[in-house]
């Protein structure tokens, strides 16, 4: 053997082919690394985009609130509230008359005869109702004034922007042609406020007349009607007491008082109104949407958690291999159903079924039945539960499956039954995994859009929790639903547009928090297993 051969045999230099300076291994590494990088970049872009579009909301919202105040609309709104409160009173008043009509009808009286009986109290009823008209007209007049001045102001602002845009483009001549009349909002405000004496006089009349009317309130034969009249008296006295409050608020109101960013923030996060395209003022309060989402999610979790975890325990601990092979794919298949199909099923079949069921005699003991609304939080919650079950089931089953077999064997070898082993060893050991499964299921539910949009009833209002069980059967709107419903129609860059982005941000943060907590729990779980 020559020396050269010997040398060749121990030549350890790399003989791999390279392309662009990369060999095969490096190229593969680059490819897979690139894939991972793309997802991270996309997530970062989404976050950035949400922030960029959404964060401008607070500034715009503050400007809008400022204008609402400086144009005097806020002042008018206070008077309007009082007027609305009086309308509430007259509604109650009219309900007394309706009840009376109903009672008389049951006694067999004809329409004409009923009218005759009721004519006795016409002075009271009509007198009461008529008291509201001058007030309403007064408020309406002022409102129109304020709206007109606000609109003019907005017009002026738009023109200013238009002009500065022209200037920026260098079209100075055209810019000079844009004529802008400077508008002084405070003049309008003074005009509105100058009517204060008139308003106070109106209030005085109302107060006096109401007291006079109440003094000679009619009495009826039926005790139920008398009780209602008494209640009306109470409500009226409460209204009279509140009138002073409205007057004080009007007196303290100051059009120049500034509105901070914090106020806009608080009004968004805890605002109780979500009103858009209003002629007076748009309100963007998250609270009704958030509480709606939460209510639906709670209903869904209440149903999905026992079902998902129960099924996971059954499949992993009790079922034989044949049953397992049937149940597992079957449950996991549910997640393959498009959510719009589930929503469609909810409208066409399930919602109707719930309402029909609420008419059953057997369920009459539930005081919330029968239901008026076919589409409500409960309908949506049930369908969302169906969608959350596969998530919870799969993850919980994984967690249970991860319990070392040795624990189960040790427990059984000590004479524990299968049930005792499950309850005392398997479930406690996998508890953190199960909790994170529940949290991720919750994340799935709160982020679901189509089903709630179709089945939750879409009434923007905070659920009335004083209703007891009835709260679950109220129509609600959700954070996801409102985005899907309104984002297609808003003007790009408007407050409304940015408000929807802020709702999206809120959703994003909620989901992020849930995932974060779930992951923390899983990590803790891995440590505890040693």
């Amino acid at each position: 053997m020559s020396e050269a051969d010997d040398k060749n045999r121990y030549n350890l230099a790399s003989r791999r082919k390279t392309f662009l300076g990369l060999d095969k291994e490096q190229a593969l590494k680059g490819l897979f690394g690139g894939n991972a990088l793309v997802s991270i970049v996309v997530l970062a872009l989404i976050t950035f985009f949400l922030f960029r579009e959404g964060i401008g909301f607070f500034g715009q919202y503050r400007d809008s609130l400022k204008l609402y105040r400086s144009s005097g609309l806020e002042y008018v709104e206070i008077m309007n509230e009082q007027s609305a409160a009086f309308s509430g009173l007259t509604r109650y008043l009219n309900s007394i008359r309706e009840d009376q009509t109903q009672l008389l009808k049951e006694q067999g009286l004809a329409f004409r005869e009923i009218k005759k009986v009721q004519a006795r109290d016409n002075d009271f009823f009509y007198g009461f109702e008529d008291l509201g008209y001058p007030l309403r007209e007064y408020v309406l007049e002022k409102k129109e004034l304020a709206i007109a001045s606000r609109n003019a102001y907005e017009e002026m602002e738009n023109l200013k922007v238009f002009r500065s845009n022209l200037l920026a483009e260098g079209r100075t001549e055209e810019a000079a042609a844009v004529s802008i009349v400077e508008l002084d909002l405070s003049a309008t405000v003074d005009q509105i406020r100058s009517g204060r004496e008139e308003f106070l006089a109106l209030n005085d009349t109302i107060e006096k007349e109401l007291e006079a009317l109440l003094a000679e309130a009619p009495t009826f034969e039926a005790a139920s009607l008398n009780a209602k009249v008494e209640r009306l008296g109470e409500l009226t006295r409460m209204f009279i007491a509140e009138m002073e409050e409205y007057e004080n608020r009007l007196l303290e109101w100051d059009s120049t008082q500034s509105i901070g960013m914090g106020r806009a923030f608080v009004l968004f996060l805890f605002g109780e109104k979500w009103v858009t395209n209003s002629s007076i003022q748009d309100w963007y309060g998250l609270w009704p949407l958030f509480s709606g989402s939460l209510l639906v999610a709670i209903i869904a979790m209440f149903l999905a958690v026992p079902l998902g975890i129960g099924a996971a325990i059954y499949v992993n601990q009790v079922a034989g291999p044949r049953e397992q092979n049937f149940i597992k794919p079957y449950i996991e298949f549910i997640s393959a159903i498009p959510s719009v199909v589930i929503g469609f099923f909810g409208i066409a079949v399930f919602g109707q079924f719930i309402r029909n069921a609420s008419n059953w005699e057997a369920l009459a003991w539930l005081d919330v039945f029968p239901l008026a609304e076919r589409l409500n939080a409960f309908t949506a919650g049930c369908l969302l539960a169906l969608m959350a079950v596969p998530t919870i089931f799969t993850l919980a089953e994984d967690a249970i499956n991860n319990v070392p077999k040795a624990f189960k064997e040790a427990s059984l070898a000590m004479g524990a039954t299968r049930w005792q082993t499950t309850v005392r060893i398997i479930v406690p050991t996998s508890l953190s995994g199960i909790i994170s499964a529940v949290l991720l299921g919750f994340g799935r539910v709160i982020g679901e859009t189509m089903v709630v949009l179709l089945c939750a009833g879409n009434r923007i209002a905070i659920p009335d929790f004083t209703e007891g069980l009835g709260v679950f059967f109220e129509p609600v709107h959700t954070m996801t639903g409102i985005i899907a419903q309104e984002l297609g129609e808003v003007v790009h860059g408007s407050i409304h547009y940015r408000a929807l982005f802020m709702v999206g941000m809120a959703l994003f943060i909620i989901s992020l928090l849930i995932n974060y907590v779930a992951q923390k729990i899983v990590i803790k779980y891995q440590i505890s297993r040693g």
Partner: protein
Amino acid sequence: MSLVADKITLNRPKQSTDSMDSDSSEQARPLIRVSDFDFFYGDKQALFDVNMEMMENEVTAFIGPSGCGKSTLLRCINRMNDLVDVARIGRGTIEVSGANIYDPQVDTIELRKRVGMVFQKSNPFPKSIYENVVYGLRIQGINRKSTLDEAVERCLKGAALWEEVRDRLDTSGLSLSGGQQQRLCIARALAVEPDILLMDEPCSALDPVATAKVEELIHSLKDNYTIVIVTHNMQQAARVSDRTAFFYLGKLIEMGQTEQIFMSPNNEQTEAYISGRFG
């Protein structure tokens, strides 16, 4: 192969143990009797016609190469093999103090309370030391504090662990060292007061110091319990057991007094195995 088969027939364990019994301790009474036992995993036969007896208050060691069926037989004694779906018995019986444990009337829960088990890999529950020991009592519905306290002390002392853990009973069982964990598992098995302890290679994952402690423990437990131990470690079998059974390919090749098996085995295969020539 026929030669091997002949040898096995010649050395029917029953005969050998019978002959051994006559010249060993007279008060030894068989507590577990395996007769004509065939066992299958699906279509695969794991045990062939096993006949043997294990004496009360003695340590019986099962030795043999991996896959020879010794662990399978051990797990048949408290019916842990019931958990394996495809496992079934072909023929024969296992009796514990005269009662056939594969009788349909037998409640496996009751059987397992009488026949405790310690596993190859220490497997304390992810609970406190205290809760690990009292687990067997809690599942029987015993929750009285004084009874449980007493049992914890008795069992941990019995497992020679009391002095090491008495002041940290509330810490997790998983925080103990490997040897301590295995002794905790023994203490846990003792809590239900079994008559028989089955040990499936209890020291295979332990270092020599921990092994010595467990072996010492096995020795002291002999007075109150009947112990069956599966081991790969021939020295261990020689050290701790009174009788030794050698298995090969699912068959019981030879069984006898440990001294006799190690000093003068009757069977060539036994001799080859213990002298390290195969296995």
